[in-house]
């Protein structure tokens, strides 16, 4: 059982919304969602990972976020993790991901 991913693009921003369970089964889906944007390094792009509909997040998902951060090659402020529920926020903060991402 895993979640679903939807993507919304504008000129400078890509919003990736994850509904349901964000775990290792989402790996290829999640990667496919950002890969198109990250191959073009000529102009920087903001990523918003919208976790409003995310029920659960595991360490593999945290790993995917790290991978996005590396492959996007952007600075900290350009990846925003938004709308996480309190339980998920706690997991992100336990891992101190607020030092790597902008958590809003």
């Amino acid at each position, binding site marked *: 059982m895993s979640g679903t991913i939807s993507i919304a693009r504008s000129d400078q921003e890509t919003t990736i919304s994850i509904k349901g369970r964000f775990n290792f089964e989402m790996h290829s889906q999640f990667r496919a969602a950002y890969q198109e944007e990250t191959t073009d390094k000529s102009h920087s792009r903001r990523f918003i990972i919208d976790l409003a509909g995310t029920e659960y997040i595991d*360490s*593999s998902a*945290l*790993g995917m976020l*790290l991978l996005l951060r590396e492959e996007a090659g952007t600075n900290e402020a350009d990846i925003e993790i938004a709308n996480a529920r309190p339980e998920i926020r706690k997991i992100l903060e*336990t*891992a*101190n991901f607020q*030092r*790597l991402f902008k958590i809003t």
Partner: protein
Amino acid sequence: MKILIVDDDRINSTVLNRLLSREGHQVLSAEDGRAGVEMFASEQPDLVLMDIRMPHMNGYEAARAIKQISSDRFVPVIFLTAVTDEEGLVQCIESGGDDFLTKPFNRTILRAKIEAMERIRRLHTELHTQKEELERHQERVQQELDISQHLFSNIVRAGNLLDAPCLRHMSVPMSQFNGDLLVASYNPAGGLHVMLGDFTGHGLSAAVGALPLSEIFYGLTAQGYSIGDLAEAMNDKLLDIMPTRMFCAACLLEVDFRQQSLTVWNGGLPDVLLVDGQGRLQHRILSNHLPLGIRPFTPDDRKVAIFELRKETRAFLYSDGLTEATRSDHEMFGSERLERYFDGSVPPEKLFDTIWAALEHFRGTAQQTDDISILEIDCARAGEESSGDRFSQARKKVTPTNWSLSFFFSPQLLQTVDPLPAIVHAIMNLQAPTGHRERIYTTLAELFSNALDHGLLGLDTRTKRTPEGFLRYYSQREERLAALAHGFIRLELTHIPQFDEKQQKIGGEMHIRVEDGGPGFDHRRVHSALEDNTGHGGRGIALVRSLCTKLSYNDAGNCADVVYRWTI
């Protein structure tokens, strides 16, 4: 193809035989069911054409017998029948027949049916071969996994002191390999280092990272490095070897019974819970670092939290597999449910078992989705020795010789590294008196920290007498060390071999001098305070006195001379 015809009607049989022989098949004939089964067993044909009404054994029974004999391979049985009624055909299929052919025979249909059966048979054989291959492969993989697991657990377990009386632990892997790493070992000063690590994911890929980490853990702990040093070395190693999406959430602790302190580095693990003598949650130690293996360390990443250790304190640490354990309706165990046990209703010594039993009960038969680990440190038993062999590794023996060393440390160096482990390591490589490592380390460590804390930084041991002062002491130490601009610490060590009356070497003497460039401190006062043994810290000089033959300070109190004697 080898085809067996079972038919008591000779004309039928002959017609068929001729037909099939002309197609290039090898044909055998039997006159009744029983003879057919016997011939099938001895000749192993690829296909059987079977009449139904025959003497001795009818076609249905013969087909059943044949299917039983050939259970491991597929041999099609085609019934030859004049009946076309439904019930007759159902009986054909029920007795194991694969198809039927109505009399009189049509050559084209016969050929088509045989070809179709041949295709099915080939598919079947192929499937069977693949299945066998898969089974062999699976067996090989399992064997390799078993061997790897054996190696893995031996490497991680070598020197592991999880059986220390003050520790209780439970670690249940989800698969054969545990992605949670749980290790413990004593440092040369007698402090206990404990680590719980939780790698991304689980299973073999998660467990592989545990090997280098356990090696670093044991190696650096034995050399006297601090847990901040350990964390940095592990982080460097994981950055080198692990892919970006893997990391290790980890918590390292040092339990120092002599200084009565608990030092914690927590990067990404759930809160460490400190519980008081009534079983109530007294303090939680939050993760204040990134997990290991994400990015290079900055000086801030080495920072540890220091707590005063009381005898009745118990510390609990666990991996998130515990709180994220789910039961069949997908509800999680959760940290709230866990922390409810720390409200004073459960006696502290029963907490560990109670929590574990509650978890088992909660999970029921639900499938495990992550590795689960929990560890308890019982500070009351922290001073008890483990039955395990503490320093079993063999060292080369060097006969006592004359040598000396001299070190000079500037404030800049003292601010960046703790030089002690490197020095002790160097000494041990020159002359390693077996069984003396910890004593020599402790002697040097105490003299060195006196020179630094009191001599150069002007800290007052008495500050440590109250719990608040205890914490103030360490924050003062940090501030003053960072601001230190002048002064030095000089360490001189001379080794002189000792002889008996027959001029045989019997051991050696280490003359150690530790001098600091500070204004000096009242060693008499420090000393007497220590002999009173008044609690928090400051038992250093008394300890050195008990370990060494001679200890003297100069009048200014900034130069200590010690003689350490050892025998072969």
